[in-house]
């Protein structure tokens, strides 16, 4: 039996994902540092509203409010015993909104990083990571998520641990990493390395890609890096609505709805099949993105210069995939 997302992909050559979760919830009154996942139970109407933003803007899929719903993150709020419940309800609310939409909308169960660093550099073991992701996956599955959606991952070890957990839960999945450090993930992974890792997994994702990171330009450079590897697997592009700026005591993302519309079309031209936003992407951005994707024709793959011209420059000169990378110091590592 194929899953709902794979069936949808069979008929479509692009799908629109959702926008920001955190930025929208903060606008609804979520306090800084408060765990959004508790709102699944305490403020379900606000979560329904969040999901409906994406559905009303024409998104084909949206992510559940469960990004930090693993035991390690919830422990910081002493809610580690509520993993199953909070994830189940996140997906149930999503199912409700998606099923009431009158069209096929995919409920993607969001799974974010544990926030811990894995061995040998940190203390999180592979087994514990798998166990945490598995627990969360079962909750999302129970609540009726169509697919699981891993996002904002930095460490390849953590990506692999989540993949293993999703296999244990018997769930199809998608998974993106965040490329925010000189074009690589914080842990140093390049776009090209990610493609290699993904293709080696025993249960590869339906689609893979990048989310969050620096700005829309950087994200598209990463998408071009994926596409250059020439694999068939659909690519996900979920970029932030520009760069956060501090304006009179408040934080404002400088990407306008029009700019995000431009970004969406460019993302598709770069080779992405799933196109959405991340931090700062509000309903008005999503509407412009949907309009642009629906009305504008596909174009040739843009060059880096064309991306910079339309969306702004890049945060670093290179992204680790070219030949002109600065070299590591030569050392005399002993056996």
């Amino acid at each position, binding site marked *: 039996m194929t899953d709902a997302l794979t069936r949808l992909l069979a008929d479509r050559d692009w799908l629109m994902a959702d926008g920001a979760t*955190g*930025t929208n919830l*903060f606008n609804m009154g979520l*306090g*800084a*540092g*408060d765990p959004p996942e508790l709102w699944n139970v305490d403020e379900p109407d606000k979560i329904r509203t969040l999901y409906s933003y994406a559905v009303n803007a024409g998104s084909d899929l949206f992510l559940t409010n469960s990004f930090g719903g693993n035991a390690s993150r919830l422990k*910081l709020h002493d809610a580690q015993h509520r993993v199953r419940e909070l994830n189940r309800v996140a997906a149930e609310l999503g199912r409700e909104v998606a099923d009431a939409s009158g069209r096929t909308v995919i409920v993607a169960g969001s799974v974010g990083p544990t*926030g811990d*660093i894995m061995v*040998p*550099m*940190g203390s999180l073991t592979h087994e514990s990571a798998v166990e945490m992701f598995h627990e969360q996956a079962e909750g999302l599955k129970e609540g009726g998520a169509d697919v699981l959606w891993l996002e904002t991952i*930095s*460490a390849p070890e953590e990506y692999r641990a989540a993949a293993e957990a999703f296999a244990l839960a018997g769930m199809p999945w998608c998974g993106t990493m965040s490329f*925010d*450090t*000189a*074009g*690589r993930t*914080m*842990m*140093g992974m390049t776009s090209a390395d990610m493609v290699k890792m993904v293709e080696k997994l025993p249960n590869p994702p339906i689609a893979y890609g990048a989310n969050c990171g620096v700005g829309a330009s950087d994200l598209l450079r990463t998408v071009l890096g994926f596409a250059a590897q020439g694999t068939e697997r659909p690519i996900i592009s979920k970029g932030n609505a520009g*760069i*956060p*700026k*501090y304006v009179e*005591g*408040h*934080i404002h*993302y400088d990407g306008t709805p029009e700019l995000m519309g431009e970004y969406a079309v460019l993302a598709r031209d770069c080779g992405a099949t799933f196109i959405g936003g991340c*931090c700062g992407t509000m309903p008005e951005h999503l509407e412009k993105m949907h309009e642009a994707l629906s009305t504008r024709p596909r174009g040739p793959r843009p060059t880096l210069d064309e991306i910079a011209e339309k969306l702004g420059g890049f945060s*670093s000169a*290179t992204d*680790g995939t070219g030949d002109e990378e*600065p*070299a*590591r*110091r*030569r*050392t*005399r*590592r*002993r*056996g």
Partner: protein
Amino acid sequence: MSEEDDDIILSELDDDELVQQMFDDLYDGLKEEIEEGVNILLERGWSPYDILTKALVGGMTIVGNDFRDGILFVPEVLLAANAMKGGMAILKPLLVETGAPRVGRMVIGTVKGDIHDIGKNLVAMMMEGAGFEVTDLGINNSVEKYVEALKTEQPDILGMSALLTTTMPYMKVVIDTMKEMGIRDDYIVLVGGAPLNEEFGKAIGADAYCRDAAVAVETAKKFVARKHNQGVTG
């Protein structure tokens, strides 16, 4: 990395070669070799302070520069910092005993509402790697907690970190409180975190925004040197 290098015996190297080797071993994150190197230098009569500044800090500076330049990434830096820590564990009691001069002292923590601490931990490690004494307040710190730590720890530097756009404005709350108390200028205030930028640092009245851990170390050194030159006590 060629084969003949496999059997380097640290104790057979002269001082200069050994220090160079320790730079390499820090770069490769080899903790046991760093501990061995520190012990050999101690046996040869090096002062703990010289070992810290010439061998360990010197090596970590190279690591920091390559991190800043996008050549090394977090995993390598964590391993290097771990090796450094091995050496520091030996030196720390001896530094106290010998009354070695202090490089500087820092109090650091993520601001109220922010529980993301990987960046803050990296800065703390790199600052220790540069010889600073660091008091880590952990995550989710209120202005009261920062002010209390400034009183008890008497640091040169206050470091604040935030990963969220919703928590970064709290840095201004802390700085404004310090101004009201008339203690703002007693400290060097450095801020950092993914969503911040230089403009933001200026807007809230910090001394500097530090893009990454390596920049934080460079900036800290620069400001502490300036402060000492002015003859202001920390």
